[in-house]
């Protein structure tokens, strides 16, 4: 049974599922806005892993092209998100996600 050990896309899909679940749990558990952002990045990376695995499985380069766009969108998202975090922390040092409730009118 060891002789037939090849990595198949299902291994990568299972790993991506684990990574996405850890990231999702992290967003819900942590309260520091920076670390919540990092967990969102983990989820994006899990999706990228799925795209590349399926691109390899189906022999379609389109999956890798989509990952390229996901990278661009992730960079833009981090830049804007960190801008918001900087504005929030300047107003209230040590702010957690609970403090964003002050944005309510």
């Amino acid at each position, binding site marked *: 049974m060891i002789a037939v*050990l*090849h*990595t*198949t*896309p*299902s291994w*990568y*899909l*299972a*790993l991506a*599922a*684990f*990574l*996405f*679940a*850890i*990231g999702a*749990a*992290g967003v*819900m*558990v942590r*309260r*520091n806005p*920076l*670390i919540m952002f*990092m*967990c969102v*990045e*983990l989820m994006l*990376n899990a999706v*990228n*892993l799925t795209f*590349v695995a399926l*691109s*390899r*499985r*189906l*022999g*379609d*380069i*389109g999956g*890798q*092209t989509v990952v*390229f*766009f996901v*990278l*661009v*969108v*992730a*960079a*833009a998202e*981090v*830049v*804007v998100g*960190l*801008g918001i*975090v*900087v504005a929030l922390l300047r107003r209230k040092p*040590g702010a957690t996600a*609970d403090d964003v409730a002050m944005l309510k009118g």
Partner: protein
Amino acid sequence: MVEVVVFIVAAAMVLFGAVGVVVRKHPVHCALSMVLTLFGIAVMFLAMDAQFLAAVQIIVYAGAIVVLFLFVIMLMGVDKAESLAIEPLKGQRPVAISLGVGTLVVLLASFFVHGGKVRGVQITGALAAGGAAQGGEQNVKALALSLFSDYVFAFEATSVLLVIAVLGTVILARRPPKQIDVEALS
């Protein structure tokens, strides 16, 4: 056999780093754990013949995004360990963890029930026979052909997106301009 060892090592890096991001107290440690995860994913991209994306993953994620995180951590002085013992919202963690496990179960089920078939396409099993371009040069060429022919409008749209993101950040992070005291000037 080599690829199995590579997969196991890279998977250990990815999972260890991901758990580190969630459970570490200190934000800097979380950022460094995220670097570990990102490098593991870059190794996996290489193992799956996506050489260009592996390079971009290291340059953009480990090089730019993590540095941006560390920069904000240092700039805002939030590099204090957060006490994970207090739990302001009663029962938040058990609910979050059970929701995470539920997410995992749903994802695994969506991949692997029906024998790995999604809409009649077998997504598990053997790799495509030489379908996705093999080899580094082939990979870059195939990706460039796809990006600049089929997806060229989306590619142009990303430039607009990046300009908007830069402008938005400048406006968000700028200090409000001080009112010029006219009385004091005269």
